[in-house]
């Protein structure tokens, strides 16, 4: 891939805590990625529409209200429905360990919880995009 990785940082649902989303958006920019931030209160359908329109490689979902089990899988489902399942979905927020296996089963590539460094997140995204390109070309 000869262009920078494009990431959509999104706030699904009604949660207003955007400190983490804003920090991750800036940190990924500092890592050389192109980042679009949706702002608050986006429905899964709005997020998917923006992701497709902006031709992003990755969607980063942030939720601290406990609605992740409902909202994150819905984003993946809509991506598949619209033939955009090659977009990698990762998530973060206040998410109990016990929910992570379910979210991964639903197609979320990784969940970053409190205490994760921005570097770890960026490294994961780069690797995941690389793996995906490898699969496409291989």
């Amino acid at each position, binding site marked *: 891939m000869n262009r920078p990785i494009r990431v959509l940082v999104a706030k699904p*649902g009604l949660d207003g805590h955007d400190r983490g989303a804003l920090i991750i958006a800036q940190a990924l920019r500092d890592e050389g990625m192109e980042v679009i931030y949706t702002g608050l209160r986006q429905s899964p359908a709005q997020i998917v529409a923006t992701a497709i329109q902006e031709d992003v490689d990755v969607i980063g979902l942030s939720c601290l*209200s406990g609605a992740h*089990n409902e909202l994150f899988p819905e984003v993946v489902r809509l991506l598949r429905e619209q033939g955009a399942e090659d977009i990698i979905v990762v998530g973060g927020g206040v998410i*109990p360990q016990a929910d992570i296996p379910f979210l991964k089963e639903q197609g979320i590539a990784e969940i970053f919880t*409190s205490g994760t460094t921005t570097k770890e997140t960026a490294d994961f995204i780069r690797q995941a995009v690389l793996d995906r390109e490898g699969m496409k070309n291989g």
Partner: protein
Amino acid sequence: MEKERWNERIQKWEEKTETLLAKSPERKNPFTTLSGIEVKRLYTKEDRAREDEELPGEFPYTRGIRPTMYRSRLWTMRQYAGFGTAEETNQRFHYLLKQGQTGLSVAFDLPTQIGYDSDDPMATGEVGKVGVAIDSLQDMEALFAGIPLDKVSTSMTINAPAAILLAMYIAVGEKQGVKPHQLRGTIQNDILKEYVARGTYIFPPKPSMRLITDIFAYCAKEVPKWNTISISGYHIREAGSTAVQEVAFTLANGIAYVEAALKAGLEVDQFAPRLSFFFNAHNHFFEEIAKFRAARRLWAKIMRERFHASNERSLQLRFHTQTGGSTLTAQQPDNNIVRVTLQALAAVLGGTQSLHTNSRDEALALPTEESARIALRTQQIIAYESGVADTVDPLGGSYFIEALTDQIEQAALEYIEKIDAMGGAVQAIEQGFMQGEIRRTALDTQRKIESGEEVVVGVNRFRLEQEEQPGLMRVDPQIATQQIEKLKRVRSQRDAGKVKACLDRLKQAAQTSENLMPRILEAVKAYATVGEICHTLRGVFGEYQSV
């Protein structure tokens, strides 16, 4: 003569210290507070900018708003609680009151806070999650079942739809035979910080400010013991600000509310005694104590000098404190009990009127009953065992605390002047000024944590290889279904014609400058829902688009 001797002693002491430092340097250079104020090695009487002695209960109230403070009455122990349905939250309230809590504090779910009914598509996944779901007066009746509203004071964290939830509280009181003038409590009702930091806005600033001043005017007459607003720095701090920014932006917002009320034709001493504040108790112990003292002094001066308030109560900054949620770690969660203890102690030493102590597991989920109990016990231990509540402002006169108080006051004042120059808080927010300042600080803090410059025990130092998460509280996902069924029942049982008539009258009133509280009260009593009332107002006021 004495001064010369003192200077000589200090000089010798410094020389001696320098030789020691040559052998073993200090841990950091410079030491700073979280606001970046340099912390000196030593503070002496030379560090006090102010000469005058202050007394508690006297202007400018730096040492506390009452002459006796906690010697007469301890702070109100008020734990924020709410989840699932009204019935479940009612049980938690009864439990907390039985455990010795002295006031209630309601957490509403996000659909309620943003004015959507539980069956609205926008509410998907959010019903009952971060607080209790309230759709109609019927839910509010269930929430306070068995709790006499003339005996408790209740704080409600509700902003954009504050008028609606206050109206419901008044209506529940009436059903219990309690008159509005007997009701005691607080609505947060602080929309400006929603635009800045918390995100549960609905309407644009202008109609939002009108709803707020309508509440001021209505309560001054009808619900005189109600705190009509809780001007909040808490969420500004949680979003990443420094202590200085927290004080500055909160008081700048306070100034905007006072100006809006004056512009709406109210007299300052008519509404200002019911303004209250809400601050964060964060990690830098001394800076936090100084912050509370500086905020009190600054507000008293603003109210007297700028707004010519003469009622003593208009000058007194009364505040609630919550310990800093963003300082809690998901790692080794029991360590959070210690963090909360230190933060709560700072709030008490800073003279808070009420306090919420966070539970140890809140970086992971809503607290379990056991965690919530430990948090309450933490306050009780500070109150009854530590002895810190037995004298007024125990740290008053500490060279360090007094110097920090002066510095925070000065730095916050500079920010306020800058905001004034922009045309006030509303304009500063519309230009994204406060938001930008907070973001910069938040990013800076993150970088310091990632570089290890700022230590977070259990996260970037002193980690455990293997961690096991404790048992967490879970909100039953079935709750949304139950809540939607309840809502449907209410809609089918109420007088639909009456609801429509009330909503029509509300709509008409919203188009004029009539006070909306009586119209909202009427609609609520007819069992119009939060979503229906907000939808009616959205139709007139429009919705805020974030900058």
